[in-house]
């Protein structure tokens, strides 16, 4: 990882830097696996492999591939970075050792979550229940952040794109960037793989209660299928396959499902986002609430990912 990071800094060609950052993400996922953080590794895997590199590349396509050469060396910045790094390392000295059973986090909330969450929510995967139920407000905030990010990308640079009429894009001949007509191998393999990836995304969505995964990861995987479709069959065809209003509705309705679950709980006599009130049996209510919330997260994330990618890729510069 360190080698990849140093290489990233030293190389001038930004394509190579993007590739090394891919390696960085891969080894980060492997590291999370070694540290037993399955859900984090899952997120890193789906985001790093499916979205991050593609988005960086589309940014590069909008700007330039060469890093601007700066002559002056900013010594004060180096000093600040060194001091900040030293302070951070000094701070870690106070932190408990890895796996120390006397660490504060193991004494207060963690045992409570680990002991009670399965009984209280009926969901075997503790991470999912903590994220969606105990920390429901945080996750609602994160979902809103993703929604806001996609909405602001739309507002900032989404206006300049071409309007696409049904079927044939205006003027643009479908060559080069936009489609891969002369590539039967890529097209056939993509056609075979896209349904498989979609099914896998739904599996991750539904399986989040029991194993690693959940709404966010499923949304990212779902979005990456459409990115693959856009890469192979062209951005304009993707705009036809999943239309703008569908994308916008997906983005908005996910947050709506999430918040609506909370409001429904409020109306049924509980607190906001208190899923126990949803059904008569509190455990079943929790289960249903977590499922709905994860669904909302997944829908928002996939809608936002597709929207951001299409806007970035559809720019003509």
């Amino acid at each position: 990882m360190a080698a990849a990071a140093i290489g990233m800094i030293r190389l001038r060609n930004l394509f190579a830097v993007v590739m090394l950052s891919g390696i960085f993400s891969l080894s980060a996922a492997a590291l999370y696996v070694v540290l037993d953080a399955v859900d984090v590794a899952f997120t890193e895997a789906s985001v790093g492999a499916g979205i991050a590199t593609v988005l960086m590349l589309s940014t590069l396509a909008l700007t330039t591939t060469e890093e601007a050469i700066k002559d002056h060396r900013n010594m004060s910045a180096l000093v600040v970075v060194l001091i900040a790094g030293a302070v951070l390392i000094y701070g870690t000295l106070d932190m408990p050792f890895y796996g120390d059973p006397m660490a504060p986090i193991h004494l207060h909330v963690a045992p409570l979550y680990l002991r009670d969450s399965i009984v209280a929510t009926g969901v075997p995967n503790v991470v999912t229940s903590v994220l969606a139920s105990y920390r429901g407000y945080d996750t609602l905030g994160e979902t809103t952040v993703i929604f806001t990010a996609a909405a602001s990308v739309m507002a900032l640079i989404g206006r300049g794109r071409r309007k696409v009429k049904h079927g044939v894009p205006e003027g643009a001949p479908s060559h080069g960037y936009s489609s891969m007509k002369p590539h039967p191998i890529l097209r056939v393999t993509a056609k075979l793989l896209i349904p498989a990836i979609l099914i896998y995304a739904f599996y991750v969505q539904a399986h989040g209660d029991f194993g690693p995964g959940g709404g966010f990861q499923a949304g990212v995987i779902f979005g990456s299928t459409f990115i693959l479709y856009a890469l192979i069959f062209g951005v304009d065809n993707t705009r036809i396959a999943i239309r703008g209003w569908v994308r916008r509705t997906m983005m908005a309705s996910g947050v709506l499902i999430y918040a609506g679950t909370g409001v429904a709980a409020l109306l049924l006599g509980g607190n906001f986002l208190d899923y126990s009130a949803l059904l008569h049996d509190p455990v079943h209510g929790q289960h249903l609430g977590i499922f709905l919330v994860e669904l909302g997260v997944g829908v928002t994330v996939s809608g936002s990912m597709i929207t951001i990618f299409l806007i970035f890729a559809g720019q003509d510069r």
Partner: protein
Amino acid sequence: MVALIVDVLSWALILGGGAFCVIGAVGMLRMPDVFTRMHAAGVVDTAGLGLILIGLMLQAGFTLVMVKLALILVFVLYTSPMSTHALAQSAVSTGVQPLLADGANNQKDKEDEPSKT
């Protein structure tokens, strides 16, 4: 008895797969140009991954884990030729010449920056 045979088999498969991985990686490092390096990388994708995953499958027995391993194997066998194809095709079409045996175009590897042209 059967367990012993399965164990020995999966030992052999995993060790063989690991050996193929290392061989492929060494080939990737030592081969002279892009296309031969791709050829070496193919060893990792097929023999290395295949043997190791089959060895793991023998360890897993008939469970969901085995199904997942088989799915991984199938998907990699789909995707890896696809990406290698795309890679080789675009390398050829941007003018990277393969090294030929008679030394016809034995120029040095081009540096990064094909985008300069």
